[in-house]
């Protein structure tokens, strides 16, 4: 749709601007403030080197380790959830009662409070009272997510797959629904194989929604806090301490405000940068499709 140029539209946007500025800009400036000063007992003292906290954080092994774990986590869950979500969407019923039922049941995990998601898996994986843990133990598999590195990672990843694959599937499903029947008929006349139908008809048509799915899953997995915190508390050791868990530990636990603030800013910038790339790709795809 071609839009009219109208500068007065700013007045309609003003309430949003004020509200979001209040809840985003003021806190963000507080963070910036902390990151370049030494806060102690409510007073601020100037730092000799304004960037001291940033330098300290850049040299800190702890932050790089947390970042490494975070990148690994996001990469793994994207690598599982995106193909699995597409696969599920391809297998969903097209219409009618079964389609509705699938949609409702699949959406269920998305609406569970995040700490309850954690609680569910915490219980489910326990060797004494959880179905999963008990079954694995009965099969003779040594599984203990509070003490074993691999078990903790597998649990946290399966939990995320459980929690969010439906989102990818729902989006892919919506993309598939928008493909006109004529495309499939043409493919049938050409005797295209199932793979070719997927590769040349379904995948390109799903590209737009898949970009959104990747963007959302990347952002949210990069900020993940509550679920792994409830299940593993960041352990065993630091093995599932992702960026947000580490940050909260530093800021609210140890009250190292300066370094935590510097950490926050770099963390935010990384997310912004990567999301900007996705966003640009997304809007370009939008334009190409003529929205």
């Amino acid at each position, binding site marked *: *749709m071609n*839009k009219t140029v*109208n500068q007065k*539209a*700013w007045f309609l*946007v003003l*309430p*949003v601007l004020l*509200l*979001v500025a209040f*809840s*985003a800009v*003021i806190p*963000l400036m*507080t963070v910036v403030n902390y990151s370049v000063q030494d806060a102690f007992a409510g007073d601020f003292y100037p730092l000799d080197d304004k960037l001291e906290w940033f330098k300290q954080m850049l040299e800190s092994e702890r932050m790089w380790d947390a970042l490494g774990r975070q990148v690994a986590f996001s990469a793994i869950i994207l690598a599982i959830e995106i193909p699995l979500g597409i696969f*599920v969407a*391809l*297998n*969903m*019923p*097209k219409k009618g009662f079964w389609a509705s039922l*699938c*949609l*409702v049941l*699949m959406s*269920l*995990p998305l*609406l*569970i*409070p*995040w*700490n*309850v998601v954690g*609680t*569910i898996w915490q*219980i489910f994986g326990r060797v*004494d*009272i959880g*179905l*999963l843990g008990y079954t694995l133990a009965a099969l003779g598999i040594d599984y203990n997510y509070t003490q074993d590195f691999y078990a903790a990672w597998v649990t946290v990843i399966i939990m995320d797959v459980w929690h969010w694959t439906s989102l990818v599937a729902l*989006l892919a499903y*919506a993309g598939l629904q928008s493909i006109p029947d004529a495309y*499939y008929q043409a493919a049938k006349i050409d005797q295209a194989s199932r793979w070719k139908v997927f590769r040349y008809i379904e995948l390109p048509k799903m590209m737009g*929604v898949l970009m*959104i799915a990747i963007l959302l899953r990347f952002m949210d997995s990069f*900020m993940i*806090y509550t679920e792994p915190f*409830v299940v593993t508390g960041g352990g065993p050791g630091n093995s599932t301490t992702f*960026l*947000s868990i580490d*940050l*909260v530990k530093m*800021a*609210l636990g140890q009250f190292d405000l300066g370094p*935590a603030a510097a950490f*926050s800013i770099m963390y*935010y910038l990384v*997310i912004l940068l990567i999301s900007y790339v996705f*966003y640009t790709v997304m809007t370009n795809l939008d334009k190409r499709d003529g*929205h």
Partner: protein
Amino acid sequence: MSDLAQKRGFALPGVKGNAIVMALYLLFLLLPIYWLLNMSLKTNTEILNSFTLWPRDLTFDNYVTILTDASWYSGYLNSMAYVVMNMVISLAVALPAAYAFSRYSFMGDKHLFFWLLTNRMAPPAVFALPFFQLYSSVGLFDTHIAVALAHALFNVPLAVWILEGFMRGVPKEIDETAYIDGYSFPRFFIRIFTPLVASGIGVTAFFLFMFSWVELLLSRTLTSVNAKPIAATMTRTVGAAGIDWGVLAAAGVLTIVPGALVIYFVRNYIAKGFALGRV
């Protein structure tokens, strides 16, 4: 057309394969939830001493505990209170803004739109401490409105995005005809335009509800007693007096119920909402 669509099927080996894949996937999704439900209907003795696939000694005591103890059920009321406040605030400011984005181009509109999106990307962990200080200094700590405003950080951008997607679908000619007929902007917006995007507003409200309902980090940081959400009530009870597994499971099941109730009404729009109105 429907005939062809049904025959076509999506999966490789045909209809049967589809059903098996879906059954397995749904089983994977529902099993952990079933386990929680199962535990919530057992006594603690049964939970800890015998491993049973369904409750042998069916009891609703765990639910009775929650629904009669104020320290438990007030958590639900608090959560409901700030979720509803957040929905009202977010919709009120997002409606005109989404209209502006969908109809007009103005100086800096694209940058503003991306800036709004960046707030959806902001890690709550970054904002937890500054929010705490901000709301403490203005005397709003431990109130419902503080949590509602804090959640507006990510919900308002979301609302603008989803509503903009729905509003784009309303032909511009409707606006023009109304103006020619002598409608003023506020009257046109409330009487004509809002009813046209009613389904979009419903879907947006659902997503605002959802993201405010599932969030814990900010709502826990900003409250202590009077506005403590149910989610935080759960974590504290776990820490304090050992673990009462039955009650914990029942509380968990009760947090799933509101979402499960409303999901039915928006089932056909969920994807569109998650795609920020872009499907």
